[in-house]
């Protein structure tokens, strides 16, 4: 039985896992790259070891080094979080060989589900419906894929077999554009997962992306914790998740059937620990297995909020060999939860990543609000890792209450020093289609225009004009006092910088 856990990750998820360990009375070990010396996971852990330079390949993807550290410091288990090494069977295998518990499924289950093409074939055999696509097992060459594509029919999707999070994914409308897209998908997949292999899948239009959280212990018990609606995406990146799904709504029969199929899919690979079965659901409520994520999901908190179950603690208990704390009958749902992913990117500039030092921040707090974050004032956002800096999660008695609460939380949230997509989320919470629950996976790209979003106030432009004028006036006034005329020809930027320094 282990009493010390190494967390092989960074960012908000490393902090999330640290908290679970600490609350279970376990000792914690952080690992970090040179860019993360001051990161919260390093600060909060009992022990912390340097992995190497900032790039992931030289740090957070160095499974060998991580296992070596675990052995040296006596950590009996490794939690991989999501991303990085979370779905690498070779890493899970190496942990087992080193006598370290991998907090996750067996290598064989990772392998079976990790190769998305193999996964489809496996679950299909147990009678789970799958989206039509390249069913064949194995690495397909560009030529093979180009030959198969017309049989599946366009539009279709190229997806990374090792993938997740939309990385290495491309939508193809015709055979002509396919070679170029194959190339870029492989390049992105290679960069993200160290594996450029891809497969094809029919694009189901107007589809909703709904997933089922499952938990499975080492004693053969498998339960599901209901669904999460994850259709709100941009460039195949989830942005907003909720539970329950407004599309499933009160259709308890559909919910139950999806849950049962999800449990069956997990059983097909003798799954152990927490996992997620992703489904595409079409307008007629047909649902298709998309893939299984054999790890903790970014969006797990919405399920925690409506079930009261701490998924990460349950993961650790499972890894310690315990029986599940809950039977399927114990699982009940209360209220509604929504998560907004707060990214360091500028929604007004094509969602361009934004880096820099966070100079100030005020978190939304109060009843029904949870923030999972790893940043704080003074922390530097670097270009090396993904742009997720916080998850804002709210709970409400009803979906309407949750939306109102999310609106007030977004309005309270302040981050200075970088740009974030908070305004995007604010517009989404004002959008009539979101409020009505009428959105599919293409909503953001096809129907949403940040320049023409609903809900802006009439008086705001005038208020903005007054504020800009007052700021301009202050700048002029102060500058006139403190800077000699001779220096007047420096740029606005420099001016402001100097003025700010004088203000301190």
């Amino acid at each position: 039985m282990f009493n010390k856990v190494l967390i092989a990750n960074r960012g908000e998820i490393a902090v999330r896992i640290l908290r679970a360990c600490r609350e279970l009375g376990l000792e914690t070990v952080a690992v970090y790259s040179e860019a993360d010396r001051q990161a919260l996971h390093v600060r909060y852990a009992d022990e912390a070891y340097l992995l190497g330079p900032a790039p992931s390949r030289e740090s957070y993807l160095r499974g060998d080094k991580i296992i070596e550290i675990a052995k040296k410091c006596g950590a009996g288990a490794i939690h991989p979080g999501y991303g990085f090494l979370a779905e690498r069977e070779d890493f899970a295998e190496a942990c087992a060989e080193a006598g370290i518990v991998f907090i996750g499924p067996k290598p064989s289950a990772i392998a079976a589900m990790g190769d998305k093409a193999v996964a489809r074939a496996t679950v299909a055999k147990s009678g789970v419906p799958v989206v039509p696509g390249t069913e064949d097992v194995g690495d397909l060459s560009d030529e093979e894929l180009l030959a198969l594509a017309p049989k599946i029919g366009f539009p279709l999707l190229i997806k990374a077999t090792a993938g997740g999070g939309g990385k290495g994914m491309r939508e193809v409308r015709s055979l002509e554009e396919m070679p170029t897209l194959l190339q870029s998908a492989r390049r992105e997949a290679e960069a993200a997962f160290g594996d450029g292999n891809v497969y094809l899948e029919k694009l189901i239009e107007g589809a909703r992306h709904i997933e089922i959280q499952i938990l499975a212990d080492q004693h053969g018990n498998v339960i599901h914790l209901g669904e999460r609606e994850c259709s709100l995406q941009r460039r195949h990146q989830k942005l907003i998740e909720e539970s329950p799904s407004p599309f499933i709504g009160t259709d308890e029969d559909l919910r139950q059937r999806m849950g049962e199929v999800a449990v069956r899919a997990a059983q097909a690979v003798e799954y152990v620990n927490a996992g997620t079965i992703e489904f595409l659901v079409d307008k007629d409520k047909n649902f298709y297995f998309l893939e299984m994520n054999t790890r903790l999901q970014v969006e797990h908190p919405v399920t925690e909020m409506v079930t009261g179950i701490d998924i990460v603690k349950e993961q650790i208990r499972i890894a310690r060999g315990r029986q599940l704390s809950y039977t399927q009958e114990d699982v009940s749902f209360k209220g509604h939860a929504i998560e907004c992913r707060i990214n360091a990117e500028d929604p007004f500039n094509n969602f361009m990543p934004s880096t820099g030092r966070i100079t100030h921040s005020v978190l939304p707090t109060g009843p029904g609000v949870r923030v999972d974050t790893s940043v704080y004032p003074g922390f530097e956002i670097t270009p090396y890792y993904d742009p997720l800096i916080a998850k804002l999660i709210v709970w409400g008695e009803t979906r309407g209450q949750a939306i109102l609460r999310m609106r007030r939380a977004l309005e309270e949230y302040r981050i200075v020093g970088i740009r974030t997509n908070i305004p995007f989320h604010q517009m989404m919470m004002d959008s009539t289609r979101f409020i009505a629950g009428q959105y599919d996976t293409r909503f953001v790209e096809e129907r949403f225009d940040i320049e023409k979003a609903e809900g802006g106030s009439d008086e705001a432009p005038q208020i903005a004009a007054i504020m800009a004028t007052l700021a301009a006036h202050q700048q002029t006034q102060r500058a006139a006092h403190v800077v000699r005329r001779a220096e007047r020809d420096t740029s606005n930027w420099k001016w402001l910088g100097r003025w700010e320094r004088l203000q301190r």
Partner: protein
Amino acid sequence: MKYIATTDEKEIGIEIVDEHHVRIGDRLIAVDFVALSDQPLYSLIVDGKSYEAYIYPEEGGWQVLLMGRLYHVHVEDEREKRLRAAAGSKVAETGEFHLKAPMPGLVVSVPVSEGQSVEKGDVLVILESMKMQNELKSPRAGTVSRIRVKPGDSVEQRQTLLSVV
């Protein structure tokens, strides 16, 4: 001091009367404007209404992020406006455009070549940062000149990548 603020192509005349009053048209309005925590984050109480905004300088004006919406405001005082009127033209739309890296990253590809004509919105450079590939587009039509980077290059924030004339 009298200013002309332009936003959404509407001009508003705003006179700063004293520290706590502005005049718009013939309305004298009580304002209380403070910077919060020494940040470019401001609180304004105007006629009892409480607002808060991020205010950033940008080329030729200010960005105001207020209630989840971004406003671009051009502010000039009367003297500046008279000078500009006398010069008889708006700020020229032409001139060289320098594409600068909005963040540090890795150049993935440069799908244009020197001398090539581009339209507004054409992709000039693909830059990888934060595990995402970002398309940097041309803000206007023109001709590509002086490409200073090639695929594989690491670039710093604000480094000039190429120009459009």
